[in-house]
């Protein structure tokens, strides 16, 4: 398996490659990250990510990546580190606090930090824990109306086929086989 690590700025050029996102804060989680923040190991760029879709076994996940200023990462790590120690490469904060008031404060501060993210610039497919990037494509304005957290989708929403968008088969057993 290719262990070359590309910068996040060049992900479009590759497929099924080691992820440059060596630190992930999973604020949403379902047997693996579903939303949060990620840091590129190569250029230190920070992104807010949101899961747009996944395959039936949740092994392949499609994410939108929106750039966010580097200080936002430090603010988030500092905010959460007061309550539990970071665990890398994937930090899934347990979100246990001493009181409801503290929980509400941390919730609110975390949301404020995430609100600083720009528009989604990249759509990627990754494996469950985000250590392999299967495909990537820069997003354009017309994609934005379809970018929505999978968990907040309603059956009436017009959803894009993000797997086709990235040239992947949603039920691609051959893709899964390469992840073993």
């Amino acid at each position, binding site marked *: 398996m290719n262990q070359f690590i590309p910068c996040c700025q060049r992900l479009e050029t590759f497929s099924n490659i080691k992820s440059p996102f060596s630190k992930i804060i999973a604020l949403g*989680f*379902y*047997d*693996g990250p579903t939303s949060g923040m990620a840091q590129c190991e190569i250029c230190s760029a920070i992104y807010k990510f949101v899961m747009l879709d996944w395959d*039936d076994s949740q092994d392949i996940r499609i994410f939108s990546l929106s750039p966010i200023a580097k200080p936002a990462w430090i603010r988030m790590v500092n905010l959460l580190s007061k309550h539990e120690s970071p665990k890398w490469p994937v*930090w*899934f904060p*347990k979100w246990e606090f001493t009181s409801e008031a503290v929980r509400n404060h941390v919730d609110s501060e975390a949301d404020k930090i995430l609100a600083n993210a720009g528009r989604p610039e990249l759509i990627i497919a990754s494996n469950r824990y985000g250590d392999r990037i299967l495909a990537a494509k820069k997003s354009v304005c017309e994609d934005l109306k379809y970018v929505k957290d999978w968990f907040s989708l309603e059956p009436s929403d017009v959803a894009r086929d993000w797997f086709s968008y990235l040239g992947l088969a949603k039920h691609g057993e051959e893709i899964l086989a390469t992840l073993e």
Partner: protein
Amino acid sequence: MTLYRFGFKHESATELAKQAARAESMIGIHGVSVRSKASFPAPSAPRSEVEKHFSVYKTGKDPCHYTIELPKPVTDDVAETFNNLFRGF
């Protein structure tokens, strides 16, 4: 409260153990994810029924995310109980 476990396929003891081990390394709970809300059809079980067999913990920022603690090791019997709860097989 209803808990939803996404995916309609049978989950083997090996698959459940793999996810549970990853969760344990991150949050200290040997378990798998469920949610209390699903916009699309998903296997489900009442929390009260799940808690007759497994402990359930609120975990993570997402107000709908819970972790079901699985025993170690995850045996075929454990997987069968889990699948029976959510999928009826």
